């Protein structure tokens, strides 16, 4: 079983990302959208935490949110909405951190 976790809150001053990383399963994916893409800000603490979690190809970010915020990252695969839909089907379930 695999879960796609979706986070949309900024990782600064919010513990959704850190809680998510500690219960993430080895087949789970993580999609960052909205202010959560600030976690990919180069040189930031959340980016270090993400790199430490070693998600590899299981880390995704919504492309429009990256572009809107002027963030580019090699750490996450940028995806559009059709890919988001497909990603939700590639996993057994979707857990949005509301």
């Amino acid at each position, binding site marked *: 079983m695999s879960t796609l976790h979706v986070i*949309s809150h900024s990782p600064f001053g919010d513990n959704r990302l850190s809680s998510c990383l500690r219960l993430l399963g080895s087949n789970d994916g993580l999609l960052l959208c*909205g*202010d959560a893409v600030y976690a990919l800000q180069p040189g930031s603490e959340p980016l270090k935490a993400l790199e430490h979690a070693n998600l590899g190809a299981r880390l995704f970010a919504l492309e429009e949110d990256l572009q809107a915020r002027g963030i580019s990252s090699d750490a996450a695969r940028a995806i559009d909405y059709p890919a988001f*839909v497909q990603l939700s089907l590639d996993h057994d379930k979707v857990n949005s951190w509301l």
Partner: protein
Amino acid sequence: MKFALAVFSPGHAPSSRRALLFAQAALASGHEIVRLFFYQDGVHSASANVVAPQDELDVPAQWRAFVTEHQLDAVVCIAAALRRGVLNAEEAQRYQRPAVNLPAPWELSGLGQLHEAAQTADRLVCFGGD
């Protein structure tokens, strides 16, 4: 595949627009949406009384157009809606409130509708937050 989508944020939240774009992409990819369910502050995404400035997005209006165009099953949680002042004509009359802001295409119903949709769908996807 069948999707049940739940929206937990008001129309001015980025996540309400994100849910709408996801829903549009799901239909465009040939999938089915068995139900849209609006809960917590998501009930405001269905409000007909939102007035967006002319040069800004009116996401509740876009939701309304989307639901109408595709004749989707769109349910607003009645308990969450009453608590937040989102009322259809029947509820406005029942509680003697001066405004109705939930005309068609929305239906007011209970949380059981969320569970039923989740049981029917291949995926339950929730949207909320920033």
